[in-house]
């Protein structure tokens, strides 16, 4: 924000006593909110608190039930359908996909193509797209189709799309949820640059360190109510968490049990090559939490998908309980007690147009038979259990999953995988978009599972998560394993060194354990 001495610039966008209800379900209660040029204003709150709904109202996607929005001090009814972009309000939505068939360059310029007369300036758009992506230090071919990108790359494209627009107000709903530390860093550089240019930035994140790092002011929502708007300097991560969750958050991570070195190996991967995977070997012991770290596109997801039979294996072998296995589809791996939770919840995880129950039981539908027919009651009970266990909050249990808040979708997906009662659990970005309170719950659940003797692979771009949870950490780079860390080696700097290719091998001999 501007220096202490200067007067603060006038408010550019404000919400005045905004309330919102979907049907009869209220989700926002009389919220006041404002943002000034050159300021980063973070909105935080639990899953389902109404953050996304608030920014949808601020960008015209939803109309408030009461109250109004002011732009430059004037009350305004924002035009729907993204036309607020013309007023300089640019949004990265939490739950909107890109159009999968378009290329990266097309997506970045969608709706405001560069034209010469009626014709597109294709080369210029491609070069421009390449340039923007370059400033984000991501190496994505501007002519690649979106459908071929990983979730994180898609997110980077969304970011590129947003920052390349002439925004006066840039609104970002959990832009960093799938980004790893390195990407987040370059993203922050861009935010800083825009901020310096006087762009007003609204930022939603569950990563409190990011909030502390970026925000000038923080607004906390809880259950649709405005709790407080305070300057960041007056806050500590603990106090934010306290305001969000409404209770003290003790240790985020449960104490690590010492891994049992003698525990038998339940899953051994030897010289595995598959699409995006080159010669990967590692072993997973019973009761162990094995972290997978690495940069975007380093191949962690590709390893998991090859193991559970989602992508074809080119060479190498997988030993499950000592026996070689090769799954050709997920039903086989699930039957063998190995479950994988994808990080791409919109594209691969959940049916957005189906309800909670249908999604929850999809993986394990066969268990809900009574006689020849599905038993609705048993399914409903399963949902009730999952709702309790994972604290899934849907104000209206009949909503479609697409209308659930992002974090609650994530919890539902976790619940869906756990329905399979797997022995080996592979979770990709387990806490993507999850609030701190629930994160803590999830970490405890994972730790409890491990101590019950389940074996868990945690793929995460959130370094702290891997460090806080894992007994051992596999660091991947460009489809290969760059190193395996154990015990005291597990530290941010060390992981980064392997991930960036500055250090290699080292612990490789431990791989074949």
């Amino acid at each position, binding site marked *: 924000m501007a220096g202490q001495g200067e007067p603060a610039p006038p408010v550019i966008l404000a919400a005045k006593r905004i309330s919102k209800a979907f049907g009869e379900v209220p989700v926002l209660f009389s919220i006041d909110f404002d943002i000034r040029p050159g300021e980063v204003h973070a909105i935080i709150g639990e899953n389902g608190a109404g953050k996304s709904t608030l920014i949808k109202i601020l960008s015209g996607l939803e109309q408030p039930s009461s109250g109004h929005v002011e732009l430059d001090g004037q009350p305004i009814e924002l035009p729907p359908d993204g036309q607020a972009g013309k007023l300089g309000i640019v949004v990265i939505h939490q739950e909107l996909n890109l159009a999968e068939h378009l290329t990266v360059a097309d997506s970045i310029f969608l709706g405001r193509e560069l034209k010469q007369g009626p014709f597109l300036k294709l080369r210029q758009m491609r070069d421009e797209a390449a340039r923007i992506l370059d400033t984000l230090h991501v190496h994505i071919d501007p002519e690649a189709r979106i459908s071929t990108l990983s979730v994180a790359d898609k997110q980077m494209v969304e970011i590129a799309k947003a920052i390349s627009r002439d925004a006066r107000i840039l609104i970002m709903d959990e832009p960093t949820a799938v980004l790893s530390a390195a990407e987040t860093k370059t993203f922050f550089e861009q935010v800083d640059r825009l901020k310096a240019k006087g762009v007003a930035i609204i930022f939603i994140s569950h990563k409190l360190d990011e909030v502390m790092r970026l925000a000038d002011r923080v607004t906390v929502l809880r259950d649709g109510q405005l709790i407080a708007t305070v300057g960041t300097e007056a806050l500590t991560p603990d106090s934010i968490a306290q305001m969000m969750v409404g209770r003290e958050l003790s240790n985020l991570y449960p104490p690590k049990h010492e891994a049992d070195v003698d525990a038998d190996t339940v899953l051994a991967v030897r010289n595995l090559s598959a699409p995006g995977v080159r010669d990967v070997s590692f072993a997973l012991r019973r009761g162990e939490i094995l972290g997978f770290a690495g940069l975007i596109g380093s191949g962690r997801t590709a390893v998991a998908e090859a193991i559970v039979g*989602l992508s074809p294996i080119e060479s190498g072998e997988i030993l499950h309980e000592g026996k070689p296995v090769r799954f050709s589809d997920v039903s086989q791996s699930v039957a063998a007690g190995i479950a994988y939770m994808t990080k791409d919840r919109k594209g691969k995880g959940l049916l*957005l147009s189906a309800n909670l129950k*249908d999604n929850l039981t*999809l993986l394990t*539908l*066969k268990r809900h*038979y009574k006689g020849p027919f*599905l038993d609705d009651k048993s399914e409903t009970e399963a949902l009730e259990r999952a709702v309790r266990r994972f604290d899934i909050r849907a104000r*209206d249990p*009949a909503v479609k999953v697409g209308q659930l808040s992002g974090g609650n979708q994530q919890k539902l997906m976790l619940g869906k995988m756990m329905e399979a009662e797997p022995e080996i659990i592979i979770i990709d970005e387990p806490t993507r978009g999850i609030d701190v309170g629930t994160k803590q719950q999830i970490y405890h659940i994972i730790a409890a599972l491990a101590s019950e003797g389940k074996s868990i692979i945690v793929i995460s771009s959130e370094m702290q998560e891997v460090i806080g949870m894992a007994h051992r950490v596999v660091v991947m780079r460009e489809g290969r394993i760059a190193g395996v860390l154990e015990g005291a080696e597990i530290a941010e700097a060390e992981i980064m060194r392997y991930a960036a290719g500055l250090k290699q091998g080292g612990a490789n001999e431990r791989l074949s354990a």
Partner: protein
Amino acid sequence: MSVSAHDRAKTRKGLAGFKFDLKTAGPLVALIVLCAIGFALNPAFASEGNIANILTRSAFIGIIAVGATFVITAGGIDLSVGSMAAFIAGMMILVMNAAVDTMGVSVWTVLLGCGCSVILGLGAGFINGFLTTKGKIEAFIVTLGTMGIYRSLITYFANGGTLSLDSSAREVYRPVYYESFLRIPIPVWVFIFVAIVGWVLMNRTAFGRYCMAIGSNEAVARYSAIKVDRIKTITYVLQGLCVSLATIIYVPRLGSASSATGVLWELEAIAAVIIGGTVLKGGFGRIGGTVVGALILTAIGNILNLTDIISNYLNGAVQGVIIVVAVYLQRGSFQRRRKAE
């Protein structure tokens, strides 16, 4: 708060239930309006005979459309059903005639024909499914191809003409179309049976849920341990089975099959499915709606035959307008409800 939220949730659930009913009721309302119009134009519309005629006729398209509901729900399409029906009918007749020649006429002749029909239906459906899933060819192209193939084959076997069932076999077979049980014609019983089985499959078994999952997002289905190719193939096989059942009740009607049999049934079947509220792009299927859709289509044809206030030449136009209006009313009222929310 948790209590009040729960209470609130309850009311909404009640409402939602109601909403859902109205939604399913959409096509039904259209059908009722249509029947009222029919009765107003000609009271004979409501005679028992006419109602029985409408129901019996809608059985063919209806049974096929039940199968099509699964195919479409799982994101596919089957254009071959009409010519498949013609082909199966022709083969049934050939087989039964041959059986009559070699071993005389009995109930077994007819059962043999029916068995042959079922086998051919399953096989034809499997071919469609296999080419779409394993061959990775668009369903539209596969079934356009098989549509041409079956139509050609029946023309070929019938030598361009009509295959007629041996008259003695016909006598045995005839009741399957013309008799009634509890005053309801047999084809209608078959239709009711197929619809109920279809409804249960769609709404009360994993298979139906899988179809919807595949149609709405194939990747999610794959990641959810669903054998996508197998389920998709099964939808085509089911479709084939439905076609064979429809053919089994069709053949005793006229006892013949030719290249003109079943022309455009595919369009009618798909139309019935869509009128019933199933989404053409997949992901959402309603057997109940399909049944009503088939009845609507048959009723339109029937009503047009019962009046002569409009030029014959314009039958097609009236039909078109009614279909569009029926769907509009149903969607329109649905839209309004959504807005009001």
